[in-house]
């Protein structure tokens, strides 16, 4: 299907999210859509997918003007989108969800639906357990499921807004191969919105670059990363090198820790993390690293073992007590786990403040001022009265950092730079390094092995619920890590 966007405009208040964008997508090709945080990528794609109307401009499908009132409308015409932040999930299993989306008959034919779903999963090589409850799936799996639903709905054009990549190298190769096949054999157009330049380079044949709501460049791929970055930012931003860690006394001591959940059991973890250390956890999504962080944060009970922070036994403290002891946990979910749609940024800062700083009556003036300072520091594009869902994905991520309080002892980060452009990711790390100078230790998980190696002092490798070894970041490579997390020695 040939898709053309003509002079698309969309403003939110004073913000020109899309400022006259015109571009075209050919069938059978894979496109990358690039741009810094807040450039207008999601806005444009949501307009194309019928999620929101443009203020002006036209969408042409095979030369015919199209108007989509809803995403369902768009899907009927062959355009489907996997959103950056999957919305609420229904209390169904994968199969039920598929069945309900597929037909509205009173008499549901489970067997036939199962066969169909199986066929789609096999054809595209997805590995999703059909009987798993949707709520129990990881973000990545839910996005795959969305993709399946769109394919079953007959999507000819697929939009993927920052799909997560917590999958192994081989799984990723398989997924990329699938996407290439969809384009080459089935003539689908695929649009990938991402900040991961390596992936864009590898998968896409053509890139469009947006900046401040306008199309500022396009190029055939592959091309030098530098060229892309320059188009995105107007210049090539510098990278902050990781300052060396001072060898200091231990802060977090974990001995013999075991954590049990329905899907995974992690046993016998021994770790000692020093003050001011940046400690990376490498592993495929669901290998146990998230459980470790949740156990330290007090979100999951420890089945065995001991966790001590600065000599204080925090093994059996609950989340709020752990928080009061100076541990911050930043989840990956943003609008699900961390931000509250409908509340202003000021209200978020007020809620996140430590209990001793919370006054009975809110002093709005002072609170707005604090918020202004915090969002300026973290470069959140927004005003104290903006609500959380008005921020672009990357700005939501920055807002999570703006909510971190002073004087923390340990920061736990689940995918710290998810959805951040290269420059903002670097900036966020700069802020984190500043914390480390004050003695705060940082424990983080990222699906991006390069990020782990670049940012950590030491790295623990997880595979299949086992913490197999600890390596010095300076003495390893992404290839070696990739093999280790795949379970190979």
């Amino acid at each position: 299907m040939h898709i053309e966007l003509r002079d698309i405009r969309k403003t939110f208040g004073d913000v020109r999210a899309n400022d006259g964008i015109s571009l075209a997508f050919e069938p059978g090709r894979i496109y990358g859509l690039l741009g810094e945080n807040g450039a207008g990528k999601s806005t444009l794609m949501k307009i194309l997918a019928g999620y929101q109307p443009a203020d002006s401009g036209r969408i042409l499908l095979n030369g015919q003007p199209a108007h989509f009132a809803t995403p369902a409308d768009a899907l009927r015409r062959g355009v489907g989108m996997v959103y950056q932040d999957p919305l609420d999930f229904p209390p169904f299993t994968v199969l039920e969800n598929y069945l309900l989306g597929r037909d509205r008959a009173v008499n549901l034919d489970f067997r036939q639906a199962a066969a169909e779903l199986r066929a789609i999963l096999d054809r595209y090589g997805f590995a999703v357990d059909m009987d798993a409850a949707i709520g129990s799936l990881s973000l990545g799996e839910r996005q795959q499921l969305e993709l399946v639903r769109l394919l079953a709905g007959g999507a000819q054009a697929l939009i993927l807004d920052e799909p997560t990549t917590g999958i192994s190298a081989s799984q990723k190769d398989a997924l990329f191969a699938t996407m290439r096949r969809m384009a080459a054999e089935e003539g689908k157009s695929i649009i990938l919105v991402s900040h991961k330049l390596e992936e864009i380079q590898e998968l896409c044949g053509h890139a469009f670059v947006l900046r401040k709501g306008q199309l500022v460049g396009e190029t055939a791929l592959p091309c030098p990363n530098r060229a892309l970055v320059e188009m995105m930012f107007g210049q090539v931003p510098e990278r902050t090198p990781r300052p060396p860690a001072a060898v200091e006394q231990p802060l977090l001591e974990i001995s013999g820790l075991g954590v049990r959940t329905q899907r995974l059991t992690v046993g016998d973890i021994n770790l000692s993390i020093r003050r001011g250390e940046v400690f990376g956890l490498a592993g495929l999504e669901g290998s146990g690293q998230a459980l470790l962080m949740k156990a330290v944060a007090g979100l999951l009970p420890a089945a065995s073992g001991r966790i001590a922070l600065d000599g204080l036994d925090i093994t059996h403290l609950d989340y709020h007590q752990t928080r009061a002891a100076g541990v911050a946990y930043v989840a990956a979910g943003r609008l699900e786990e961390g931000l509250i749609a409908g509340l202003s940024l000021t209200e978020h800062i007020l809620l996140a403040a430590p209990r001793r700083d919370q006054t009975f009556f809110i002093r709005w003036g002072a609170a707005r001022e604090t918020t202004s300072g915090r969002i300026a520091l973290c470069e959140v594009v927004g005003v104290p009265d903006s609500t959380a869902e008005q921020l672009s994905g990357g700005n939501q991520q920055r807002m999570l950092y703006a909510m971190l309080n002073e004087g923390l002892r340990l920061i736990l980060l689940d995918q710290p730079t998810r959805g951040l452009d290269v420059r903002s990711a670097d900036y966020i790390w700069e802020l984190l390094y500043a914390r480390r100078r004050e003695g705060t230790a940082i424990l983080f998980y990222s699906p991006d092995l390069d990020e782990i190696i670049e940012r950590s002092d030491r790295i623990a490798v997880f595979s299949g619920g086992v913490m197999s070894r600890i390596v010095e970041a300076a003495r390893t490579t992404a290839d070696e890590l990739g093999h280790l997390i795949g379970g190979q020695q």
Partner: protein
Amino acid sequence: MKVVPLLKRIWPLMPVLASLAFILALLLIFGADPATAFQALWQGAFGSRDRLLGTLAFWIPLALCAIGLMLTFTAGLWNIGVEGQLILGSIGASWVALNLKGQPAWVLIPLELLAAMAAGALWAALSALLKTRGKVHEIFSGLALTNLAIILTNYLISGPWQPPEGGSFRGTQPFQEAALLPRLFDSRFSPLSLVLMSIALVIVAVLLGNTTWGLKLKALGRNSRSAFLLGVSSEREAVIAMMACGALAGLGGAVRVLSWFDSLRQSISGGIGFLALLVVMLSAYRMFWVPFVAFFFSAVLQGSITLQLRTQLHSSLGGILTGVLVLLTLLFGDYNHLRRLRKESRPDE
């Protein structure tokens, strides 16, 4: 393009107009003259000093419950049990009124009100604890506890608190005069209750709009998972919100026994708790509208009593009117909300 702002303006009136049309149709079907009917309704609510005072007297406990419900709704709790909390308030006030003899009014009344608030809060706390500790949804515990409250009332009336001349299943003996709230012109309306309601209104509005606690409730109601991660203790705030709502409903219950009636009766609540839920929904969960909508409800319900006398139409017409109004309001929704819903609706829905 001018149509949209206009539509937005008059949208809140749509359900009102639609339900008026519905009632009109109903009246015509039953062969009643709509003009007479609406006139009777008006007369019944505001036609004389006594009727106006009656409308006011019914309004106060209704508004008290609705104000309390603003707290629980904000926190995302469905406090259906507000009806039972009101009944418990009546029982608490009656207990003081029946058991403390020979005390002056300035001792009795504060004690009655406090007992009522404590009893209502206790009943609400049961619901809240069942939810936080026992994972019982507050809708179910609320309904069960309301039933228990009704049973308890009947037991007290026919058992320990029955009048000396024998149990009649209708009520206790009238309380001593000093135990009753001072009323205006021998009516059922007590100015003191209006003062208390106004204070409650201001306090709850300030709590919700200007305190950290109110903000926490708002956060819980919108996204309890994120609120928890931000450090809000859902358990604690939920219990406190429920108890505060129960206390206000209990106060409403005290007003019912101490000024509307003069004793504990079988149907002491008059369904006010359930009505209050409707009031809050019709107010679109906005504090500003709560007292007005409650007053409107009270007027319609009081007016429909006269309607029955004048036109032979059953007085439940008032109930039907308010019910239909709420249904239609929920159906039409608020314009912005509706647009958002449309935007958010995903292909699989």
